[in-house]
C-alpha cells in the first residue's frame, strides 16, 4: 500500500488536541499512525514546512443538490451568464458559477476551498431520487442530505394520534427508503397551514388545521424519535418565523420546547431578531439571550447562516418565507408545493450595506460566532446560498480572526447597526485552532461523521494545506494542497483530479409492521406508487451507511428493482 507523508507542517487537529509541527501519514485513503521505524520512507512526500495542515472542511448546512437547487439554476440564467464559469480541462468538466453553481463546479469549488464534505440540509423525500442523481455528478466532495419531515402528513397524523412507536418506525423507514442521513424540520406545521391558504403559523402552539397538532408537538415528537433512533446527527431545526422581526422570542421558545433533546439549530442568524412582525423599524439584534441559552445547554449546536453583502439566491423549504421575500423585494418568485410534506420558495436577493436590515443581519451573524463560547457548538455556514455563497467562507474566517476588519466594515454601515447590535463591543478573535473547529472538527462532530474533521489514525485522509498569510481571506481561499481520501485534488489552486465522492446515509432498524400502514396512506394520498417511492439498491450505488459507533444500526435491503442496464 502506497504511503504518503505530509511533512513538517503545523498540524491543527483540534479533535485530537493537536496544534504542533508534525507529519501526517496516509495510506489507503486514511490517516495512519506514524511508522514505528524512524527511517520509514514514504512513496510520496508533500513538504508542508511553514504551512498549516488541517482536516478537510465540513459544511453542516448548505443547499447544493436536488429539485430546489436545480429549479434555482433554471430560474436564474442571468446569474450564470454574469458570474463566470469553470472551463473544461482534460478530464474535468465545465460548469457555471453564481450563487447556484452547476454540480461539477460545486464539487470543484468546495474542494478549492479545502472543503471535502457538504450536507444538503433540506430535501423533500419525494425529491430524494433527484438528489442522489445530482450528488453522483458532484465530484470530489463527500455529501449527505437531510430529509424534510416537519410538515409530513403521516408524521402529523401519528403525532395527533399519539402513536410514538409508529412515528419512530416511520422516521427510520423514511430515512432508509430515501437514502437520507438525518431529519430536518422546517417551520413545522407552518408550511402545511400556509399551503392550505390559511397563512403561516405564528407561535409554537397554533393549530395546524385539519391535523389537530401544533408546531410544538411535531417538533418535540420528531426530536424524541431522532434521539430514540440514536441517529448520528440530532434533529436539524429550522424553526418558525424565519426572517421576521421579533422572531427571537419564537427561537427562545423553540429552544425551551426542545428541552432535554439533542438538537442542531440551523442558520440561527435568521432567527435572532427583535421588533415586531410587519414593523422593520424596531428590528434589532437579540443574539445575546439566545447565545446565552445555547451556552448553558450542551445538547444544542448551531450553524450561523452568515449574511454577506452582494447578490445571492434565497431558497428554502419554508414556502411562506418565499412568498414573504417576494412581497418584500418584488423580485421573481418560484414556489413549489411538494405533496404530503413540504413547500419550496426561491427568490433572488441582494444584501446591501446601505440597507440597515441587511447590515444588521450581517452583524447578527457575526455576533453568534462571537457569543457562543464553545466553538465546538457553532458551525460556520452561510446557509449557502441563502446568506451568501460558500465561496465567501474565507471572508467570514477573516472577519472572525480580525476585530479590526470587523470594525472597518462596521464603520461604513448605517449608524443603526452600531446602535442595535452589540457587535462593536465584541473583541474576541478566533485562533486558527478555533477556525479549524468551526469549519471542520465541530461540524463533523455535530454530524456524527466519525472519520471526518480530524487527522487521527483511521480518519479519512481529507486534508487541506494552507500557506499562512496575514490576509486570511487569501489564505483560506487558496489552499496550497487539498487531499481527498489521500488523493491530491487541489495543487497550487488547480484541480488535479476529480474522484467521485461518497454519499453518507443511514438506515436504522424499524418494526416492519409499519410498512403496510405507510403503504395504505401513500397509495391513497400520493401521486406515485409506493413501490416507486423507495429507492432501489442500484439507485443507492456509491452511498455508504454511516453508523453511530455505539448504536446497533443495521442496513436492511429495500427490495428495490431499479436498474439501468439491459441486454
Amino acid at each position, binding site marked *: 500500500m502506497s504511503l504518503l507523508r505530509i511533512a513538517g507542517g503545523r498540524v491543527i487537529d483540534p479533535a485530537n488536541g493537536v496544534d504542533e509541527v508534525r507529519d501526517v501519514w496516509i495510506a489507503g485513503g486514511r490517516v495512519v499512525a506514524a511508522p514505528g521505524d524512524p527511517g520509514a520512507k514514504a512513496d510520496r512526500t508533500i513538504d508542508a514546512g511553514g504551512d498549516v495542515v488541517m482536516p478537510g472542511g465540513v459544511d453542516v448546512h448548505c443547499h447544493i443538490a436536488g*429539485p430546489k*437547487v*436545480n429549479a434555482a*439554476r*433554471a*430560474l436564474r*440564467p*442571468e446569474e*450564470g*451568464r454574469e458570474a463566470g*464559469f469553470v472551463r*473544461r*480541462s482534460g478530464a474535468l*468538466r*465545465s*460548469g*457555471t458559477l*453564481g450563487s447556484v453553481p*452547476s*454540480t461539477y*463546479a460545486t464539487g470543484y469549488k468546495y474542494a478549492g476551498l479545502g472543503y471535502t464534505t457538504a450536507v444538503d440540509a433540506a430535501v423533500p423525500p*419525494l*425529491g430524494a*431520487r*433527484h438528489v442522489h*442523481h*445530482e450528488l453522483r*455528478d458532484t465530484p470530489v466532495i463527500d455529501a449527505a442530505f437531510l430529509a424534510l419531515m416537519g410538515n409530513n*402528513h403521516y408524521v402529523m397524523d401519528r403525532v395527533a394520534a399519539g402513536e410514538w412507536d409508529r412515528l419512530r418506525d416511520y422516521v427510520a423507514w423514511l430515512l432508509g427508503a430515501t437514502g437520507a442521513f438525518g431529519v430536518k424540520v422546517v417551520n413545522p406545521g407552518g408550511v402545511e397551514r400556509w*399551503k*392550505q*391558504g390559511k397563512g403561516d403559523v405564528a407561535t409554537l402552539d397554533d393549530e395546524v388545521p*385539519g391535523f389537530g397538532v401544533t408546531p410544538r408537538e411535531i417538533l418535540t415528537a420528531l426530536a424524541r424519535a431522532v434521539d430514540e433512533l440514536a441517529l448520528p446527527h440530532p434533529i436539524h431545526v429550522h424553526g418558525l418565523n424565519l426572517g421576521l422581526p421579533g422572531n427571537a422570542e419564537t427561537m427562545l421558545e423553540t429552544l425551551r420546547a426542545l428541552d432535554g433533546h439533542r438538537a442542531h439549530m440551523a442558520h440561527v442568524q435568521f432567527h435572532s431578531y427583535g421588533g415586531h412582525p410587519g414593523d422593520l423599524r424596531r428590528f434589532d439584534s437579540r443574539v445575546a439571550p439566545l447565545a446565552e441559552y445555547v451556552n448553558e445547554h450542551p445538547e444544542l449546536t448551531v450553524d450561523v447562516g452568515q449574511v454577506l453583502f452582494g447578490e445571492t439566491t434565497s431558497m428554502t423549504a419554508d414556502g411562506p418565507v418565499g412568498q414573504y421575500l*417576494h412581497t418584500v423585494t418584488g423580485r*421573481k*418568485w*418560484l*414556489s*413549489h*408545493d*411538494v*405533496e*404530503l410534506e413540504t413547500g419550496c420558495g*426561491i*427568490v433572488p436577493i441582494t444584501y446591501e450595506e446601505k440597507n440597515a436590515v441587511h447590515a444588521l443581519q450581517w452583524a447578527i451573524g457575526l455576533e453568534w460566532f462571537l457569543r457562543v463560547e464553545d466553538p465546538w457548538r457553532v458551525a460556520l455556514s452561510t446557509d449557502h446560498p441563502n446568506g451568501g455563497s460558500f465561496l465567501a467562507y474565507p471572508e467570514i474566517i477573516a472577519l472572525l480572526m480580525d476585530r479590526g476588519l470587523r470594525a472597518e466594515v462596521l464603520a461604513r454601515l448605517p449608524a443603526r447597526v452600531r446602535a442595535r447590535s452589540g457587535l462593536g463591543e465584541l473583541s474576541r478573535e478566533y485562533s486558527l485552532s478555533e477556525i479549524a473547529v468551526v469549519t471542520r472538527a465541530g461540524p463533523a462532530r455535530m454530524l456524527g461523521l466519525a472519520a471526518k474533521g480530524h487527522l487521527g489514525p483511521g480518519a479519512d485522509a481529507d486534508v487541506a494545506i494552507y500557506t499562512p498569510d496575514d490576509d486570511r481571506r487569501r489564505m483560506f481561499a487558496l489552499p496550497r494542497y487539498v487531499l481527498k481520501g489521500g488523493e491530491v485534488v487541489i495543487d497550487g489552486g488547480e484541480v488535479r483530479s476529480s474522484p467521485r465522492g461518497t454519499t453518507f446515509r443511514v438506515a436504522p432498524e424499524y418494526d416492519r409492521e409499519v410498512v403496510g400502514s405507510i403503504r395504505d396512506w401513500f397509495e391513497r*394520498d*400520493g*401521486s*406515485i*406508487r409506493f413501490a*416507486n417511492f423507495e429507492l*432501489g439498491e442500484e*439507485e443507492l450505488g456509491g452511498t455508504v451507511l454511516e453508523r453511530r459507533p455505539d448504536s446497533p444500526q443495521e442496513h436492511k435491503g429495500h427490495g428495490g*428493482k*431499479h*436498474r*439501468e*442496464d*439491459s*441486454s
Partner: protein
Amino acid sequence: MATPSDPREKEKNGSGPLAIVEDATCVACGCLCDDIELTVSEGRIVEARNACPIGRAWFLADRGLGTRPPATIEGRPADPEEALDRAAGILAGARAPVVLGLTATSVEAQAAAVALADRIGAVIDPSHAAEALPRLLATARVGRVSASLGEVKNRADVVVFWGVDPVTTHPRHWERYSVEPRGRFVPDGRSGRVVLVADAARTSTAERADHVLTFAADRQLETLQAIRSLVLGLELDPGAVAASTGLDLEALRSWAGWLARARYGAFFFGTGLGGTSSVEAALLLVRDLNAKARFVALTMGGPGNPAGAEAALAWQAGYPVGVDFAPGYPRSLPGETSAASRLERGEADAALIVAEDPEPGLTEKARRRLREISRIVVAPDATARDATVALASATYGIHAGGTVVRSDGVMLPLRPALGSRLPSEREWLERIRTRLEALAR
C-alpha cells in the same frame, strides 16, 4: 442481465408461463403513469393493465428488434466496435457538432449526452426546446408558483385547463391527478372541484368541464391580462375588453370570480399558450391569485422525458436547454445557442442524435443542413433511419431501465419488462465517450 426486473411467473389458462411486472412507468404521454401492470409472454408484452389507449399502444407495439442489425455505417450493417470508432472519429474531427433529440430517453442517457457534449464542445439542445422556451423564459423573468401533482389531487377545488385537452392527449390525467381523485382536502373528488376549460376550440375536455371559455387563439395574452385585471379588482371598459379580446366582459368577470373563490386552484397550461408574453401573463395571474388564497401553475408535460433533459442539462451545465459548450464552458443565449440556429447558419458539421428524430421540431433550413452533415444516431430504430453511423439501442421503459422526470419534477424509475441484446442509449454514449478519451490521449 436481460431478465425482467422482478417478474412473477404465473400460469394463466394453461397457455404457458407469463411474467408480470408491476408498477411500471409509461412514457407514452406526459402523465408518466407509474401503475401499469405488464404481462410478458414469449418475449413480448401482451397486456398493459391500467394503461390508457396511448399507453397500451406504446407497450404492446411490435418493435421488430430481432430483424435489424445493431449497428450500421452508411446504411450497411457494421460491427458495433467499428461503428463506435467511426462515431468517435466523426465527433473528434467536428468543429461545430450538435447534440439533438434527447427527450425520449432516460435521465441517465441524457446526463451521458451532456457529458459528451461538454467533452466535444457541442451545442446540445433537446428537441422540445423551441416549444419549451416561452415557458422557460417567462419563468426566468417572473418565476412560477407551482406544485407537484399530488398537491392538486389533495387540495385543488378549482382546476383550470387553459388551451390543453388532457382528455385527448393525457387520458389518465383527469382520473389520476387533477379532477377525479379523492384527496385529503377534496374528499368528494370530481364533485368537490370546479373544472374550468379555456380554449380556442371545443375540445373533449371542454365537454366535461363545468364552465368553458372560448377565446380567440391569437388573443390569449389579452384574455389573460383582462382576467388578471379583474382578479386585481380593476374596473374595465366593456367596449375595450370586447375590442381587445373579442369577449364579453361579464363572461370574463365570471371567470375571474371562479378563480378568486378558489381555496387552492390549479392552472394547467401547455405549449399552445403561445409566446413568452402569454406564458408570463398566465404565471402572473396565478401568482396574483396567491395574495388571498393558493393557486399553482403546472404544465401538462411530455410526452416522454423532456423534463429529464431540462433537469440533467440544468444540473450539469446550468441551463435547461440550448447550451453551447464550444467556448470550453457552458453558454446559453436563447436564439443564439440553439441547435436549430447553429444548423440554420450552416455552422454545424456533425450531429449526434439521441433517441427521437429531431426533424419535426426544426425549420426546413435547419433540416436541410442536418441532412448534409454526418449524423450519428443512437436510438431504438437508429438502423432504420438515415444515418452515417447508426447505433440501435434498447427502448427505455420497455427494454432499458433508468429514471424519468414527470412534468412536476418528480423522478420515477423505469421497470423494463423485456430484455434486449442491444445496449441502452446511455451505454452507447458512454462507449463513444470512452473512445474519445482514448483518442485524446
